[in-house]
């Protein structure tokens, strides 16, 4: 597999764009219930703190701070774009699907209908050492979602 299949253009774009980045600059919408989770990968020092706001059963806002490799930062950015506006149940489904693809060692293909830009991380599944990088913000998100809903 070539490097470009791992570092897809979408991933490189998102690693620079970092949608949703800037916890302290955003305030959760009034009346929303929020959850926040900090995750650390001690192997490489990747770190993400992600806050998720839910109101009326929908994800109203995702906001995060983090430091890490391009895969981990892009994955947080993609997640933020994808999750906003989803119902809590929909988001659980998306997170489960993403996890299944990433843990499959390349056997399970991503469904672009369901995962959108996150489907670009399919290639990461073949690099066992990088799966955690792609997952870290999603693990934080799942934890935050459980707190908020």
């Amino acid at each position, binding site marked *: 597999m070539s490097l470009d299949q791992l570092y897809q253009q979408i991933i490189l774009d998102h690693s620079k764009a970092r949608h949703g980045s800037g916890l302290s600059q955003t305030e959760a919408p009034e009346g929303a219930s929020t959850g926040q989770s900090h995750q650390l990968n001690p192997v490489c*020092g990747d770190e993400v703190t992600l806050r998720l706001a839910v109101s009326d059963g929908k994800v109203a806002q995702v906001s995060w701070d983090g*430091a890490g*490799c391009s895969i981990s930062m892009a994955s947080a950015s993609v997640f933020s774009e994808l999750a906003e506006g989803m119902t809590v149940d929909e988001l659980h489904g998306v997170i489960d699907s993403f996890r299944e693809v990433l843990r499959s060692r390349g056997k399970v293909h991503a469904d672009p209908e369901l995962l959108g830009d996150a489907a670009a991380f399919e290639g990461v599944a073949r690099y066992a050492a*990088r799966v955690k990088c792609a997952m870290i913000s999603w693990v934080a998100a799942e934890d935050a979602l459980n707190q908020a809903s």
Partner: protein
Amino acid sequence: MAVVSTPATLERAVPVMDNAEVLRIRNDFPVLNQLVNGQPLVYLDSGATSQNPLSVIEAEQEFYEQRNAAVHRGAHHLAVEATEAFEDARQTVADFIGADYAETVWTSNATEGLNLVSYALSNAALWAAQGRGDAGLKDLALQPGDEIVVTEMEHHANLIPWQELAFRTGATLRYLPVDDAGRLDLEHAAGIIGSRTRLLAFTHASNVLGTINPVRELVALGRAAGALVVLDACQSAPHMPLDVKALDVDFAVFSGHKMLAPTGIGVLYGKQELLDILPPFLTGGSMITTVTMERAEYLPAPQRFEAGTQRISQAVALAAAANYLTETGLDRIHRWEAELGQRMVTGLEALPGIRVLGPGAGQERIGLAAFDVEGVHAHDVGQFLDSKGIAVRVGHHCAQPLHRRLGLTATTRASAYLYNTTDDVDRFLDAVSGVRDYFRA
């Protein structure tokens, strides 16, 4: 005709290593001869673990084919053969570092060696408090008010065992800071190492900065304070001549897997008079004289610290590795690697957006270089290099406090050994020059 064997004449007599010799050396290392991602492997991660030459692999295989048995137990032929091989290996490795046979203790790795010293010392406090063992244990026991001194550049293996020793004994842990260039300031050190210092532990060569620490000066400070001195020789024993007696350290540790031997074997050197009175760390079979249901008496070193069935084939293999290094010449290896280290730093410094940790080009360093790439995380750098068949290490290299001191969380490290050519370094540099473009930094 008078032959005067000054170091200078010796230096001229010994030819320096060159690429032609390294290419011959590489033939001894089967693992290096392979393609990774379609390109010939460039292995620049020997600081983490090194590769084994055929003579080492064969020594281990020969042991299993011809002599495998438990040592120091049983009177049968194989047991005698195995014991002989095991103890001969100890003598070989003792000679390799200028130690005596009984001062050379087998461990699993350097980490275990350091923990052994840490626990033996806190056990000394327990024994001394109850009047058990040698009267001299009193002087080794740490207590509140005493200080343990390490440096800010230590590998976690030479930091955490001392944090825990401080916790167990009530002693205080202090450290010698590093400056921005990654060096210890000796004047500063003289203000920290003092009458309260009971133990001074530091690395001979830094696995991140590549600096070689001033061992003699530090030992002198430790001696003046009456402290025990522990040397982490993980990055020196495999790469340069090491004489623990000449350096006058009390303890020294290193790992076999970083010096052409398999994993699972390491060495603790300790001065005989210390090893013979220190309480054991692990207890059980093979390290006792008399055992009753209530208590046991222990053998002197080295068996005192080798409880249970030992790593026999690994010890034999480590001796083969020591022989391989001795035959090649550690002085020559050291000079060759220093040249590769300079080539790395000079090349890296010439690239925009690269910050090399530790001493700059032209200053002494061992054959490794850790660096930060502006705008690109070390994990991505490592992945990019891997796609070109180049193996490096990424992360904090088990030195989080040092990285924090330098304002970083993760770096990329290339580390060379006697089987690396200047071509390896050039391929590495060429690849690094493309990293920032690829990641649009």
